């Protein structure tokens, strides 16, 4: 029995290391200027997918990511950890997409895959922190959703049982397949790379990467089909062009400002007993404390 799991993942700029060139003049993100990493919660999602793959006979895990050519890195990274393969959705038509245009493109790609039993993705990506794409994809596909998953507890009789971690509590919910699940960072961390799989898949490439590498290995890829990462452009998915990219994005960036805070005139002190005692006396006297 086949059981197809798709993990939606995103290669994100590492927002912990933002430089001055991070934004382009049109207000969109200049991804080329930043180190690119695997979105952390998507790794939590991958782990949940791989656990199911280990439990369910015939289950497969494939990554779907939308991004530039180099986003294939996170597909390889997933394969090193146990995924079977992946799909890169790439092309300039997708540029400038907000969450809604992104979810439309992803939903079109998923429809193209035939029967999908389960979609798992991270709750949110660290570059936008919106948490919108998962639910928006679910709505476009007509799938129910379970958000903020911490653990998949059970999968049987076409029903999935999930523990959710909410801001102020915990829920255990059960729903039918197909289903879309978003996973929290409180879920278990992703397993590390597997040495054998890393050896096996290190030459896995997309057609674009293959072209860049030259033709020397063409035969090799024919005899090792698992090294071919699927790459889809706009022509490979059934779509209506107006819902993609900038035209498919209802939100527009009007303005971008750097954040500047008004500096105060501060009183500088050392940690000496006298200064700290004076400070505490002052705070008590003006009723700030006590």
């Amino acid at each position, binding site marked *: 029995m086949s059981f197809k799991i798709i993990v939606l993942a995103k290669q994100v700029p590492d927002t912990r290391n933002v430089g001055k060139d991070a934004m382009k003049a049109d207000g969109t993100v200049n991804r080329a200027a930043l180190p690119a990493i695997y979105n952390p919660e998507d790794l939590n999602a991958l782990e949940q997918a791989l656990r199911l793959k280990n439990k369910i006979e015939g289950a497969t895990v494939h990554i779907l990511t939308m991004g530039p050519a180099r986003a294939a890195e996170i597909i390889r990274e997933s394969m090193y950890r146990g995924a079977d393969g992946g799909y890169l959705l790439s092309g300039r038509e997708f540029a400038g997409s907000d969450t809604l245009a992104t979810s439309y493109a992803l939903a079109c790609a998923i429809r193209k895959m035939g029967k999908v039993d389960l979609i798992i993705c991270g709750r949110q990506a660290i570059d936008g*922190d919106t948490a919108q794409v998962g639910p928006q994809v679910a709505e476009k596909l007509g799938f129910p959703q379970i958000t903020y998953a911490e653990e998949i507890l059970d999968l049987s009789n076409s029903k999935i049982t999930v523990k959710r971690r909410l801001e102020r509590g915990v829920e255990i919910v059960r729903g039918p397949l197909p289903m879309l699940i978003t996973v929290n960072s409180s879920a278990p961390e992703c397993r590390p790379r597997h040495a054998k799989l890393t050896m096996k898949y290190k030459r896995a490439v997309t057609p674009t990467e293959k072209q860049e590498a030259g033709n020397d290995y063409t035969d090799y890829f024919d005899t090792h089909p698992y090294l071919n990462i699927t790459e889809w452009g706009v022509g490979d998915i059934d779509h209506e062009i107006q819902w993609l990219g900038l035209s498919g994005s*209802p939100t527009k960036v009007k303005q971008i400002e*750097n*954040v500047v805070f008004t500096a105060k005139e501060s009183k500088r002190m050392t*940690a000496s007993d006298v200064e700290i005692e004076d400070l505490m006396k002052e705070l008590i006297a003006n009723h700030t404390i006590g």
Partner: protein
Amino acid sequence: MNNIFVYLEIEDGIVGDVSLELLTKGRSLAKQLNCKLEALAVGFKLEGIGAQVFPYGVDVLHLADDKRLFPYTSLPHTSLLVNLFKEEKPQIALMGATSIGRDLGPRVSSALFSGLTADCTSLEVGTYEDKKAGKVYENLLYQIRPAFGGNIVATIVNPDCRPQMATVREGVMKKEIKDAKFIGKTNKLDVAKYVADTDFVVEVIERHMEKSKLNIKGSPIIVSGGYGVGSAENFKLLHELAATLGAEVGASRAAVDAGFAEHERQIGQTGTTVRPKLYIACGISGQIQHIAGMQESAMIIAINNDPKAPINQIADYVITGNIEEVLPKMIKYYKKNSK
């Protein structure tokens, strides 16, 4: 038609603060846009909701009362909003950036093809010029939010799609009663008309909701720690000082990520926004995303090894030193002088 809708979060029959804050904001936007403020309560046993929200100036309260609508599940609430919005055509729809709002908002926006901006820190009304199309839009909702780890603030607009949707975190907007005696209209919805039986596919088997034991947002004094505190062990010093002063302990995102403090203590753009009388920042360097969540504190004391830490710029008092040294002294001299 063309009014402002606020989705109400309800737990145990009580409307959440985040919703009351949005009603307060919604009321002032409605005045500016010369339209009505409408609220939507979806759940079970909603008799008491009107009395809670009308004082905030709600002109119309829509009630979708059905046993199956509580606890919240995604599809039925989505259908209700989608179908009601198709009839009512609101120009703006607001909801809390909460576990529920962030599950529901994207689904509704996806169904209606309306733009949604998450975690806004400010909402304003203004014009927008689309230079390429040569069009000027009046009275759009400016959805202002930090992006990129708080390093920039973006103003987002939805020129062509309605409703203009936004979520806002709890504590970001102020809550203020407009008129304690005001009573608006109540509109009871026929739930079956909006929600199909087939929407009830996800069942909640178990549910444990905790009333947050912490009250960081309401605490007049906050002792907050960052990555510079160094360890969960050192965080105990913050708890001691907090206990002495009658304060609550907060933390920066870096300290929470490092496991020094619980997630619910996080202060900043992705945590709680606070405005205490006194904010004592210990070992916090002052990343923008943290400062944005505490800059309106009446008084700020920054304790840091690094005399050049960015947080020092917005602090009233800057103590350069180790927290292991400074905090015990603060405790000692508070006790000595407070009697």
